[in-house]
């Protein structure tokens, strides 16, 4: 079955393991992912300022492209892209004036084909009919946990994973989140469906420090470490997440966390699609497990020899 999928820039450049594992997992679940033609960056951050309305144009253009291609929904695996697209969708739906102003930009679009130099104008308006879903939501609502359970090829029952939501899947509170911001359970349900043990820990929806890891690295290390330590204290073998920035702070920056907190011995951090694809029997080589700072292969029982699906 074909399904519109918006990857976002980071997944093509820096966290290709999230993109590739999403493709691999969805193929096993029977979906062919289609990227909207000529997609651009979503803007990465939904404008918090009511007057910076132009920030809605890029995400609205992506949604319009899905609409033009006949799609009624688009899924994302990146928590940031999900948040921007979903908030844009809601903002335009609830505010006719905003929709009118954004459509004034979109109507004037000109696309020049880089090869043929052919100019395309007369773009339609965005009607607001595209549903934005995070992949965790899509699995819950459209695929169903029963089906996922029936397709599991590897037994992960001896492992315990801590689901880390972070900010962008849950907040701002209201229509945006994929679950209740203060008491979410969708990630836990997902992990149960792939047969891995689930660890509940109090820091699962706490901020990882976001871009403070650049401007205030010490403060960011501290909040990142709180999360990893809490997961470890509650018996997790790994932290599972969906956001490339959380992945950066919790995995790639473990070097800095170790310098600051000498007792920290490290913790594997995986994207939810990597663990899903692994459970579904995808070979380890295409999951980008070698890109992690803390190598997750030993905990998954992957040695140098090619792993055979059990």
């Amino acid at each position, binding site marked *: 079955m074909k399904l519109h999928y918006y990857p976002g820039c980071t997944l093509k450049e*820096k966290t290709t393991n999230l993109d590739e594992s999403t493709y691999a997992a969805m193929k096993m679940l029977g979906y062919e992912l289609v990227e909207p033609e000529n997609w651009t960056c979503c803007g990465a951050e939904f404008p918090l*300022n*009511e*007057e910076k309305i132009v920030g809605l144009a890029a995400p609205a253009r992506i949604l319009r492209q899905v609409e033009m291609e006949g799609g009624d929904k688009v899924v994302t695996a990146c928590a940031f892209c999900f948040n921007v697209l979903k908030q844009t969708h809601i903002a335009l739906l609830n505010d006719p004036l905003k929709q009118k102003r954004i459509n004034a930009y979109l109507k004037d679009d000109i696309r020049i084909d880089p090869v043929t130099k052919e100019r395309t104008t007369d773009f339609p308006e965005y009607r607001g009919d595209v549903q934005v879903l995070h992949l965790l939501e899509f699995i819950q609502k459209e695929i169903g946990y029963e089906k996922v359970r029936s397709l599991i090829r590897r037994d992960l029952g001896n492992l315990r994973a801590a689901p880390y939501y972070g900010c962008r899947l*849950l*907040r*701002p*509170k209201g229509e945006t989140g994929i679950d209740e911001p203060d008491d979410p359970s969708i990630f836990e349900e997902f992990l149960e469906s792939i047969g891995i043990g689930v660890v509940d820990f109090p820091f699962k929806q706490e901020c990882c420090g*976001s871009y403070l890891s650049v401007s205030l690295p010490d403060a960011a290390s501290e909040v990142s470490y709180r999360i990893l330590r809490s997961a470890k204290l509650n018996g997790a073998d790994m932290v599972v997440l969906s956001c490339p920035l959380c*992945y950066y702070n919790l995995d790639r920056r473990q070097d800095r966390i170790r310098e600051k907190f000498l007792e920290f011995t490290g913790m594997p951090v995986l994207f939810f699609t990597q663990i899903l694809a692994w459970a579904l029997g995808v070979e380890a080589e295409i999951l980008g497990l070698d890109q992690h700072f803390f190598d997750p292969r030993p905990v998954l029982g992957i040695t140098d020899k090619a792993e055979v699906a059990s």
Partner: protein
Amino acid sequence: MRTILKLGKQEHRFIDRISELSGENVYSCYQCGRCSAGCPMAFEMDILPNQLIRLVQLGEEEALIASKTLFICASCFTCQSRCPKGINIANVAEAIRYLAEPKGKDHFGPDEVPAELADELP
């Protein structure tokens, strides 16, 4: 002795501008403190989130623009999800940053990201 707080034109203009930019009703805050209790970055802040809203209510533009808090808020929206009055404090902080920028107060530009981080940073 009684202390009477009276806001002038300038203060009112500032509060109105913050309301316009953020889309939030800052007057509805009654200082319960749930925002500051839940804020993951509060340990680094000089003005706590509830104090930030109180200073907006008082029209204290200068104190707000001088505060470190503006650039410590990571916009994680934990305060927004806990606020019983539904105020989105991250939006209010962004509105103050927006007003601070023309006054020469900015914090961090993309050109200041260390090259070794830029390769990996999402």
